[in-house]
């Protein structure tokens, strides 16, 4: 297990290094440099440009620039966000807890709901209920994240105004609330974005889990359980589900990129103050360091998400535990 852990950690480090190389290439292949506005300005004379280039190391050979870039990344320096007038790491770091909260709630909710739907479908496989639920999950599975977010926003804040329009807290009243009131206010603002993201993700889980359960059903131990006289319900709960839960652990890692991008759109549409909102706003202001910072942090999150799910898998599967 320790060896496996070291091996996977090494792989993750290599991946992060290659991601750094990719973003470096992205920055340097793009036309112009970070102060090309100033560079094109006829009032700025050549010596100022040279000084600036030298100051920021743009006159060095590319390999040296790459080493410097990796070095600054390793020290957590992601550059300066022009639109926020703060370091990129600070902007993204302060927004990260909100994103993790949103994703965490959606993750737990979607796996619970998705597995439940799959169980109902498999218990009544071939029935109208099974087909209807399959159709519904296909519908949500095929839906662009941003469109569902727009629809839930429209439905539950304008047509049936039960939830607040956006943000993480009430902009005016939150300061004047008691501790309990603040907590409820936060939950109230979290509900709709989290529900939207949960709906998107649970469609994926339900489809995947239904297939996993159906894969397990022809197994010998299910036949044995049936011969022992267990009811179909007990077979599903005690034998099929337990074995079909293993693939779901890898789904956590596999669905992480989709969950992250889903969260980015949901944050933008519900003005939820997370990483996604920061990066999406940086698109409009062309705040490139912040965009690239978002790409790097997002990729690191995905890498560690899949690392975590692999480790969980190795821990949960008794066949792998001994290695």
């Amino acid at each position, binding site marked *: 297990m320790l060896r496996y852990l070291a091996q996977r950690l090494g792989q993750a480090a290599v991946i992060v290094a290659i991601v750094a190389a*990719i973003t470096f290439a992205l920055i340097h292949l793009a036309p112009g440099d970070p102060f090309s506005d100033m560079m094109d300005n006829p009032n700025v004379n050549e010596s100022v440009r040279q000084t600036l280039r030298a100051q920021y190391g743009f006159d060095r050979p590319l390999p040296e620039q790459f080493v410097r870039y990796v070095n600054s990344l390793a020290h957590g320096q992601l550059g300066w966000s022009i639109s926020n007038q703060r370091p990129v790491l600070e902007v993204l770091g302060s927004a990260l807890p909100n994103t993790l909260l949103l994703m965490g709630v959606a993750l737990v909710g979607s796996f619970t709901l998705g597995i439940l739907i799959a169980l109902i479908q498999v218990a009544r496989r071939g029935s109208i209920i099974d087909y209807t639920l399959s159709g519904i999950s296909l519908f949500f599975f095929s839906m662009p994240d941003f469109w569902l977010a727009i629809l839930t926003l*429209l439905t539950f804040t304008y047509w049936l105004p039960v939830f607040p329009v956006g943000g993480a807290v009430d902009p005016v009243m939150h300061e004047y609330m008691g501790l309990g009131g603040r907590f409820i206010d936060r939950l109230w603002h979290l509900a709709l974005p989290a529900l939207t993201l949960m709906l998107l993700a649970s469609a994926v889980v339900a489809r995947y889990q239904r297939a996993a359960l159906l894969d397990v059903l022809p197994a010998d131990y299910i036949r044995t359980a049936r011969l022992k006289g267990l009811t179909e319900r007990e077979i599903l709960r005690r034998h099929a589900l337990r074995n079909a839960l293993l693939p779901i652990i890898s789904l956590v890692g596999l669905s992480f*990129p989709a969950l992250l991008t889903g969260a*980015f759109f949901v944050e933008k549409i519900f003005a939820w103050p997370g990483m996604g909102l920061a990066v999406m706003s940086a698109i409009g202001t062309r705040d490139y360091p912040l965009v690239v910072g978002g790409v790097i942090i997002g990729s690191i999150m995905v890498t560690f998400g899949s690392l975590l799910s692999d480790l969980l898998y190795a821990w949960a599967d008794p066949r792998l535990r001994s290695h």
Partner: protein
Amino acid sequence: MPGQIQDSAATRLARPRESPLALGVRRILRRPSSRVAFFVLGVIVLVGLLAPLVAPYNPSAQPDIVGLKDLPPSLAHPFGTDPYSRDVLSRVIYGARLSLMIGVLATIVSLTVGVAYGAISGYAGGFLDAVMMRVLDAFLSIPRLLLLIGVLVAWPNLSIGALVVFLGLTGWFGLSRIVRGQVLALKHAEFVTAAQALGASRRRILWRHLLPNLVSPIVVAATLGVAHVIVLEAGLSYLGIGVPKPLASWGNIIQDGADQVATLWWMSLFPGLFMVLTVMTLNVLGEALRDTYERR
């Protein structure tokens, strides 16, 4: 009964060779759900192709920017009009054309790169394979949308052609891994050894003996890939960095109404419905294809 086995083997040999693609299509059309999906997709594709004939208005005409703007759905404008007084139904129809075209072209790019990369990696093996796979792992850990945002913010005001290329270049990682696995598994198959013994060149073996065995994963990846690109393109256009503005794509139409979602709800609802319908049919067909190929 040995006679029977020989019989069936003989009939199998005698049957004219059918391409795996035709076989797949024939098989999935036995399912009612695929037939419905095929029909619906066919209608959407046809509407997109015949857009100039089907659309009631010119999609970019702004007939009366004061009197005809922001109209809710009515008989004259079933999907309403946008803030520039353009007819949303006509724009959705032209959007079908553009969004489908982008989806198909970008997927062709992905398939080409993905198959080439996977085949080279699997066939070469050894150190090159290991390096190529680690690079692939890295690409797979960058969420595709984020990577595209990074690229599109760096190169603002891209043409549609360039957008298609970038959409394609970020979509081949998964297929590449499947192709590599297949090539790796088939590399030492007897028919490959036989071809080698007969003196076939590497190129011939890749093209004539390995590639035909890859058709099924490629067809599945293509179908699901088009669906994925349509959703991505819409998302990027919604963010304002996808298809350049006056053109109508499904994402652009939603973007045009994004400032006033509540009052111009028809501008988000209708293009989105068309998009979901298209993506659903592609997903149904792609999965049906995967099922039939896997069962074989």
